[in-house]
């Protein structure tokens, strides 16, 4: 296994403008459907709503 591109220290990501285009494309909208379905039925944990809820 090549390990030449593996890092040991924490580093910030390098900016790649191509990923901005993907952000605008909203590529994961389909994946939000499952998340929204689960959240619509379960809501958020009660302690979270007590802490942050309006």
């Amino acid at each position: 296994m090549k390990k030449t591109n593996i890092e040991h220290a924490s580093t910030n990501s390098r900016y790649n403008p191509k990923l901005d285009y993907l952000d605008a494309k909203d590529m994961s909208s389909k994946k939000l459907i499952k998340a929204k379905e689960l959240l619509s039925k379960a809501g958020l944990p009660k302690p979270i709503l007590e802490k942050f809820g309006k």
Partner: protein
Amino acid sequence: MNILNKMKFEKYPTQSNANKSIFSFTSIGRNVIEKRVQFTQINDIENYGLPKHITLYNLAFGDWNEESGDIDDFARSNNGDTEIVLATVANTVREFWHYHPDSLLFITGSTSERNRLYQIAISKNLNELLKEATIYGLTNYYWEEYSIGNNYDAFLIINKRNLLY
């Protein structure tokens, strides 16, 4: 010190968009596979009872499919570098939280197998993670504090420091 920094696993270098909501990296094992991690706001119309300044994000992660132009979160790459990949994803969470401190993370796997993978990653580092984050697991539409050994359909992760939780 941030616990996600303290994880001793090696990790891959990442690239990101300007907003620090999409990250890419290359998994190099048996094959060379481009991976993506994307944080997408969920509470746009429905806020699930949260105030406006708290944002709920969905974390999507998987292989990048050039043909579909989307993340393939059903792929089972078996590339022999699972711990490095998961450590890299954990590092993107750390970086995301740095730029989006008032955010909660919602994670659900595309399959029960993928959820088990997330559970393994969380359970392996639970004691360390709990110093910095509060973790809930969703089972049968009921949230409970994360417990090793239970199976969950989704996870909610709150950064204690950023949200003063």
